[in-house]
Structures are given as C-alpha cells and as structure tokens.
C-alpha cells in the first residue's frame, strides 16, 4: 500500500534505528562529565576574590558559547555539503546541529545577564561582543528552525534551510564588525576585567579547560541524539503517507 520501494530501501537501516535507544554511550559519558564539572566547579575550585561565587557562572557561560559556535558552524558546513551533494543526511545533520546550537545559545544568553547583573549592575552589556553576537546568532538560528517548520515539501525545506544556513554564516562577520564599531566609537569602554583572562590561578584554569571539553562533547552527543530523532521522524512520516 505505502511506497513499498522507499520502505524497502530504508528498512535495512530502519530496523536497527527503531530498536536502538537514542541516548548512546557518548551521551552518557557527556552527562557524567557535566555532573563532574558541576562538582568540580562548586567544591574544588576556589571562590574568586572580588566577585564571589557568581564568577563560577563563567564555567558554564563561556564553554556553552564555544559549544554553540561548534554546533552552528556544523550547520553552516553541512548546508554547503547539502547544496553540493544533495544528500538528505547532510540536511538532517544541519537541522540537528541548529537545534542543539539554539539550546546552547539559550544557555549563554541566560547565564550572561545573571552574571552581568551581579557583577556590572547591568542586565545586558551591549559592549560585550560575545554576548551581542550570541544574541543575533540566536535570532538567525531561530529563523532557520522556523523556516524548517514552515515549509512542507522536504526537498524545498532542505534547499531553503541550506541557503539560510550559508547566508547566516555570511552575516555574522558583518554583525561583529558593526557592533564593534558601534561600541568602540560611542562607548570607549575601560578595560573590563574578565575572569577568563589567562592570568587565572591554575585550579580555575583547569576547571575552565575541562568545562570546555565537557561541553563540546555534550554538544556533539546531543547532536547525535537529535540526528537519530530526525531519522525516526522521517521514518514515521514515510509510513504515514
């Protein structure tokens, strides 16, 4: 009854996909890593002299930003690959990376103001390049996901998303330049002490580096999980039609 050829072609891979749990060893490893980082940041890393415990937020904020940039770069790259090879796996990976990237960007955008309000007395720091770029990246990735939700035809959706992914990547340097010029000309800021400067005591630096590693792995693990969810969704859509 249903499109038998397409079901047959994918049935070889669909059986394992159905049985296999979506959360794999990598994810469990990453999750344990996050717990370990929490423990280390809370109990085994010294409290910063002037900012108090709030400085520890930085161990979550900056690594999440790095992970988000990895995810979003992956979306841009797989978008190019899709336009070049028309492989639906590239499209699925682009979608998975974008969604995971949005989650990590949200973490950056929520921890940033929490930390900033305590330390600078201001909820939003427009002169903080990373925070402002992250904000606009959030908007672009959100638009990407909305477009994916709005287009029904799968091939058109993949093409539109790929175009948006590439254009979004082109946009980021312009946002960076514009905001940098904006804050440099209008708000010559004094040097802002950021605790992530290299002159960190070794324990803090180690926590930082470990946090970078853990969050990068968590990001990739989430992408793998989300990719599998995408496979399941496409299978479900196939069986329904």
């Amino acid at each position, binding site marked *: 009854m249903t499109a038998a050829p397409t079901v047959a072609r994918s049935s070889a891979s669909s059986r394992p996909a159905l049985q296999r749990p979506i959360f794999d060893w990598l994810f469990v490893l990453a999750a344990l890593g996050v717990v370990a980082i929490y423990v280390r940041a809370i109990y085994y890393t010294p409290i910063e002299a002037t900012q108090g415990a709030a400085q520890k937020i930085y161990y979550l904020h900056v690594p999440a930003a790095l992970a988000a940039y990895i995810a979003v770069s992956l979306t841009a790259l797989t978008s190019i690959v899709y336009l070049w090879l028309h492989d639906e796996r590239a499209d699925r990976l682009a979608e998975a990376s974008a969604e995971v990237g949005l989650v990590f960007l949200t973490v950056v955008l929520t921890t940033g103001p929490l930390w900033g309000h305590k330390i600078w007395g201001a909820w939003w720091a427009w002169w903080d390049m990373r925070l402002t770029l992250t904000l606009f990246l959030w*908007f672009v990735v959100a638009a990407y996901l909305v477009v994916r939700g709005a287009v029904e035809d799968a091939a*058109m959706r993949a093409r539109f998303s790929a175009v948006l992914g590439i*254009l979004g990547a*082109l946009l980021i340097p312009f*946002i960076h*330049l*514009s905001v940098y010029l*904006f804050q440099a000309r209008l708000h010559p800021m004094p040097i802002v002490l950021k605790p992530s400067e290299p002159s960190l005591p070794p324990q803090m630096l180690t926590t930082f580096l470990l946090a970078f590693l853990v969050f990068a792995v968590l990001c990739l693990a989430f992408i793998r999980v989300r990719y599998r969810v995408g496979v399941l969704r496409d299978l479900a859509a196939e069986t329904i039609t």
Partner: protein
Amino acid sequence: MTARPPGTVAAAWLIARKDLAIEFRTRTAFLSSLVFAVLALCILYFAWDESIIAPADRAPGVLWVVVTFSGLLGLQRSFSIEEHDRGIDALLVAPTSREAIYLGKAIGNLLFLCAVQAVTLPALVLFYNLPVGPSLLGVAAVMLLATIGIVAVGTLFSAMAVNTRMAELLLPMLSLPFFVPVLLNAAQATTRVLAGRPAAEAWPWLRIIIAFDIVFVVACTMAFPYTLEE
C-alpha cells in the same frame, strides 16, 4: 528569423519594468507604503518627550526604523503578485536565466522603495524640523546604499516566504537579523551627516554598508535559483 532571448541585464530590466507597470496601474501598494511611512514618522514623534531629546537628534534613528519597516511592507508584495494566476511559472518558462528573474525583482523593489523614501525624507524634514541643505543629499546617498542591501536580502527571502503558509510573519523574522548591520551603520552614518560632520567621519560606517551590499547581492543572486521549484 528568431529573435535572440534577452541577456541577463536586459531581461532583468524587462522584469523590473513589468513589476513597476503592474504597480503603477493600481498604485495601492505604493500608496499604502507611503501612508504607513509618513504615519509612522508622526507616531514616533510622540514616543519621546520633545523637551528631553530634541527632534532633530531623534531624526536619524526614527528615519531608519521607518525605512526598515516600510521597506518590509514593500518587499512583501514582490512575489505575492506572482502568486495570483501562477505568474511565476510564465517567468520560469521564459528564456531568461534564474538570476535575471532575481535581479529584475530586486531592481523593481529598489525603485519602489526609493520612491517611497523620496517622500519619507521630505516628510522627516518637515516633521522633525531639520535644516534643508547639502547634508540632505548625503542622507539620500546613505539611503540609496542601505536600500540596496535591504532589497538584496529582502527579495530573496520574500521569494522563499511566499512558498510557506506564514509569509507575512516569516519575512520580517528572516529579514530583520540581516537588516541589522545595514540599519546600524546607516543610522550612525546619517547621524554624522546630518550633524554636518566631515564625510570622513561617516566613512567607516558607509564602508561596511558597501561591503554588505557587494557580498549579499552576489550571494543572493547565486542562492536565488535554489528557492524556486525544481
């Protein structure tokens, strides 16, 4: 003897003329955008207390907010007019390249937006008590440069949005992040031009707009074929 199909530039110009001819016949979209822009200028005037910030100081920011949003209104129509009677199919069958279709639509949009802005700028001068002088020519130049960028991106996204169920919502959501560099730099450049500062002060901002225009006109022209049905 068979006529040779028009080259890309000629085809683009033909498409632009067709769109503008359609527009001129009814003029509703043009008049709506115009009225919206002028109304917005007036409404925004009341958003601030004039004794705290002088209207002339607010003018650049207000101008660019109004240009951006009236531009979005104007862009909405460029592909929606093809939806009626599936006009886009006729365009695709014609012996013109896909890129020519994009460029034609974009030029049509550019002329449309420039026409609206040609009324918006005098209205701004009127309502915000700006001095009339050569600085207005500088503002017009900034507006032209910025509108090229707005139109390049907006034309592509309106082609994409028209294929979805939520075109009116999707177009602003897609376009506005891309308008940010244009808007930011144009407002800053306009502030300096209106204040009578030397051109060199506005140049760093203008430079970014020009780079944006070049990059995105090329990128969107190349991307346009992917937004059409295969």
